[in-house]
């Protein structure tokens, strides 16, 4: 550590955001009910994940919510050993990207897996969760055999 003199600022700043989700409310409510919904554009049929009310392909705002099939294929993953400040209370976690029906790709934690037992190409399942604070989220799990 350096011994240079520093002014330790008296002012600290905590940032906590209230992120609007009115356009994706169905998604978050769906998670709480155990459903995984994505948006499908009524005009061009494009399916979006993350869900979005405005179609990134044709820019139409007419969309419907459809359920995604839960079986996917693991594409890549990592074990996050050094976690960010706001995750210091978490044990190291595996983050993975998996591909689902229609080429939809999702990033999420892979629960209950060991690094030496998994590899790209294995099957994973998308599961819904609710945090102890009441926030819905989703994870990947492995088939029983792994």
């Amino acid at each position, binding site marked *: 550590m350096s011994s240079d003199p520093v002014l330790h600022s008296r002012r600290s700043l905590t940032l906590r955001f209230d992120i609007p989700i009115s356009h994706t409310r169905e998604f978050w409510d769906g998670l709480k009910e155990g459903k995984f919904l994505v948006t499908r554009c009524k005009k061009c049929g494009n399916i979006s994940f*993350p869900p979005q009310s405005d179609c990134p392909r044709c820019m139409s705002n007419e969309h419907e919510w459809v359920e995604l099939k839960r079986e996917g294929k693991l594409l890549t993953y*990592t074990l996050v050993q050094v976690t960010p400040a706001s995750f210091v209370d*978490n044990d190291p*976690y595996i*983050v993975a990207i998996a591909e689902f029906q229609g080429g939809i*790709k999702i*990033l999420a934690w892979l629960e209950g897996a060991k690094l030496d037992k998994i590899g790209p190409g294995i099957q994973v399942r998308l599961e819904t969760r609710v*945090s102890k604070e009441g926030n819905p989220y989703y994870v990947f799990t492995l088939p029983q055999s792994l």
Partner: protein
Amino acid sequence: MSRNVAVVGIGHSRFGRRTDVNIAELAFESIKQALEDAGIDRKDVGFVTVGSAGGWYEEALPAVVINEYSGFKSVGTMRVEAACASGSAAVKVARDMIASGETDIALAVGVEKMSEVDTLTSVELIGRAGSYMWEFENYGMTFPAYYALYAVAHMNRFGTTTEDLARVAVKAHKYGAMNPLAQFQRDITVEKVLTSQVVAWPLKLYDSCPLTDGSAAVVLASEEVARKLTDTPIWIRGIGYSSDSANLSKRDDYIGLRASVEAAQRAYSSSKVGPEKIDVATCHDCFTIAEIMAYEDLGFCRKGEGATLIREGQTEIGGKIPVNLDGGLKAKGHPIGATGVSMIVEITKQLRNEAGRRQASIKNGFGLAHNVGGTGHYAYVTILSRDAT
């Protein structure tokens, strides 16, 4: 673009943990050198762009704080943000201001001060650089974790090994040891990399660039002014750019950075040169896997053959294409917003034959700077040359 633009002055601070200076003092070190190198004063500068990602130091408006400290008055200015490519973006804006005829001389400054907050807060701030809502809020992604996703896919597809990754770090430190401005100036071994702490498997501490404080600056000028100021102008022949999705889940694949490929194609096309004519390059090696992918994405080898280049020593001095002879982000350090400008400084030094012990052999007169923002979220490729056309 109507007018040719040259680099006529360069400045570069010592990179590292700079608790001896604040953001403005740090930027000033490079600004003063760059102006002196160009032989001009502040009143000659028509516009100042400041590349800085910010958030980890106390000032919210770095451009005006830096300009005030450096004695600029009434100058046109802006902060430019393209994550880790902010420096290249700042150079591009400055170049465009001159090429368009808006001004004759512009200064591009890159600066970052990352040591004023604790390490895990920095990890947090960089981890949020992507899609906060979908990939950070619930999943705590980190910068090494993003690149680890690419490393695993690249290793799985092409047989790239952790030893190959380690060789990139060893090369970085080899040249960093020859660069008095680098954060790390000591050699390391493959063994040392492989036994270092895992930060995001399979990436380890020594696969990763450090958190760095540092600044760099370049003075750019129109052809008419450049020829009056210096006998050795280094010309910006082309700048290519592209971007990719915020969410990593929306990428086409995880074996290369599409933004880099497209930025390189645009840079080669606008400069009318190909990768085979490049004498020396800086590649964005924030993690060792990033340098291997860069070799491929920039066309220095075919897709999947990046590891072969490092194994054969083809990216060292005397090899096919020497890369990161300044130590790269890995050993020189990676002060986010300063990195892109630092790369232009390094390529300018190389093309001027001023790099001393780590000088590449310049045959065709072309150098390339490849600067990635985030995890291929942004990419800028700048091609410089000894000749204007």
